[in-house]
């Protein structure tokens, strides 16, 4: 049995291949690469899941025994798995393959980023504060939320491209995107899903903090940025549901929201603070 690291590097290429297939299907309007893309994406997601489980068992073999959700490398791997899983669900439910271009790209980029030498990939033992089931729930729910927001952002970008191109592009790749109403609707659905999971993620994080440090909220930069992200999406939901915003304005807000997600995830480490294990 290969070890998880080898497995993950192979999966990286499979995601890349899925991206190429989806892109070809979209640009050349062929159904074969599209179906191929779906198959490859399923293979990549399955491989990703196996890699995740392998790493889990490896940590047990090393005597540390923890769910692999405790550092940047591990969270990236879970993130790409979540993106692939949620996307495949959407593809099967709504029969839209063009979104696969973005989903496979995001999954590929995340897992490729994990392969960079600057990302510590060794299995490290957990310090006591991280040995908590709340932490596992926290990471899983946060990253399901982030993955849904990533897909929502991809769909919003498609919306912006398509609505900019205008009605004259009756044929060509842009025309093969789902119609604007479907894109708008899918963005909204992904965001509600993401919002629910981000909320649960922040809440489980707060409960964990309360168990470990005796405070559920401490305004540290990572916490604050997750709240900022939450507030942006809450603004989006209210603007849409109560003020009737749709279309481009929602698409822009969705991109801003995802930028906040990325900053919460990667940018916060550049700021001074103590949430630095992630």
């Amino acid at each position, binding site marked *: 049995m290969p070890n998880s690291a080898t497995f993950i590097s192979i999966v990286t290429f499979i995601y890349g291949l899925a991206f190429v297939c989806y892109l070809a299907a979209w640009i050349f309007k062929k159904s074969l690469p599209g179906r191929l893309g779906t198959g490859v994406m399923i293979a990549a997601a399955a491989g990703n899941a196996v890699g995740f489980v392998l790493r889990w068992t490896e940590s047990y073999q090393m005597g*540390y025994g923890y769910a692999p959700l405790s550092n940047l490398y591990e969270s990236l791997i879970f993130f790409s798995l979540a993106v692939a899983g949620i996307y495949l669900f959407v593809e099967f439910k709504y029969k839209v393959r063009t979104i696969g271009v973005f989903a496979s790209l995001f999954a590929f980029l995340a897992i490729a980023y994990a392969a960079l030498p600057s990302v510590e990939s060794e299995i*490290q*033992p957990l*310090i*006591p*504060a991280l*040995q*908590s089931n709340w932490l596992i729930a926290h990471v899983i729910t946060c990253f399901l939320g982030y993955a849904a927001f990533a897909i929502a952002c991809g769909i919003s970008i498609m919306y912006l491209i398509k609505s900019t191109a205008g009605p004259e592009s009756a044929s060509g790749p842009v025309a093969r995107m789902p119609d604007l109403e479907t894109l708008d*609707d899918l963005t909204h*659905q992904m965001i*509600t*899903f993401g*919002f*629910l999971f981000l*909320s*649960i993620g922040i*809440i489980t994080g*707060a*409960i*964990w903090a*309360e*168990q*470990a*440090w*005796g*405070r*559920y*909220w401490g*305004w540290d*930069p990572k916490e*604050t*940025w997750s*709240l*900022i992200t939450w*507030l*942006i999406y*809450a*603004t989006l939901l*209210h*603007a849409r549901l*109560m*003020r009737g915003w749709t279309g481009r304005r929602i698409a822009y807000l969705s991109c801003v929201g995802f930028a*906040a997600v990325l900053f919460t995830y990667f940018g*916060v480490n550049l*700021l*001074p*603070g103590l949430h630095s294990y992630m």
Partner: protein
Amino acid sequence: MNTRKPADASAVDQIWRFFASVRLSVVLLLTLAVTSVFGTVIPQNADPAAYERKFGPVFYPVFDALNLFDMYHSWWFRLLLCLLIANLVVCSIQRLSSTWKVIFPKTPKYQPERFRKSAGRLEWPVQGTSPEDLKNIYEPYMRKHFANIRVEQRESGEGFFIFGEKGRWTRLGVYAVHFSVLLLMLGALIGSIFGFEGYMNVPEGETRQAFSLKNADQNRKLDFAIRCDDFTVSHYPSGRPKEYKSDIAIVENGDVVLERKLRVNDPIRYRGIKIFQSSYGKTPGDTFTIQFKDNDSGMKFEKKGAVGKSIEMPGGSGTLMIQDFTDNFSFRGHSIGPAFFGRLDRTGQEPRPVVLPVEFPRFDKMRQGDYWISITDASYRQYTGLQISRDPGVPLVYAGFAIMILGCYVTFFMYHRKMCIELIPEKQDTRIAVAGISTRNRAAVKNAANKLAGRLEKMTVAR
């Protein structure tokens, strides 16, 4: 709706209307998001001197005046939160009072026209069956699975409608979410007024009652005492700590009332106080020996010392006060083990600090005084570092958490829908039409119509 002209609207009305706008909530949510960024860019609650160095004489006073160094507790951030609460409360009262009757009417209305225009309407014929027969099959099913069933004759007097609905109560989900936000804020407020957070170090075998408050140079006393019977730490082969735990006893009026192992992530709760395993370290034994060595003659003098005690220098030339101890002193980036800190007060000289690392007795020679000082025969005891906190707001906050999750789920993934089965006679046959309407989830209501149609078809065939 307020039908009065703005001219005679009283001030109260105007304020009410200001807070009853969703535009205000959008603005507030976004403002909170944007302003919260400042506090993540500027580290909060650091040393004022450090801020002054960093931001210079121009920006430091400006930032300070804006409370940017403790912005989440500043008056303006709190004001934003209060506005948010007012907005939420006023909006909810306003909308709930006007929509309550719409949400919970005594007799729900069904308008056939709206179902006929519904995008997901399905129609199919059933041969050789009258509307009456079908009504008799479908009605019990509908009664079982939907609420507020109404069976009516069609307008033309021929055929029937069977109306039903589901999920009316889910319209309250939004109010639950908003209520949960209020609970969170209330919990946080109670916590900040009646709660505290502090630290206590208890050496093995000792009992302590006092602890120092965080964010304030103050000590407080618990109503009970905490005794540490044992402390253990285990390490991974790499040297990282794997687990640490203490055997803790709670002592009240001399009696042990609770004994438990205290681990990280598993606090003890006792009489509203929570005790967390937060750190550990070494503390010096009660006394140790301080050695003074004359630099010229090499003469040795020894004295007993203790932390917090002042001792005479040899020859009465001043005093040495041992002030503090660390179990891991760092010198030029190297960690050189336990060390004592003291202050030297020589007659006719400025007081000066001394550092006395136990494992490097010659360290103080670098000071080049007439004596060099070292600590001999120091002994240590392990202490357990406890965090002591009390936050009576936590139950409210946790209730808010639960309600928020439930409310979000209900709001986003459940929806109120009305369904209609129309049975239209066509000679000996019947046309069946199934349609659903919903104020919110149009895509889902199409699915619901599909599913209901599938059920009905199966029942018709099975008969």
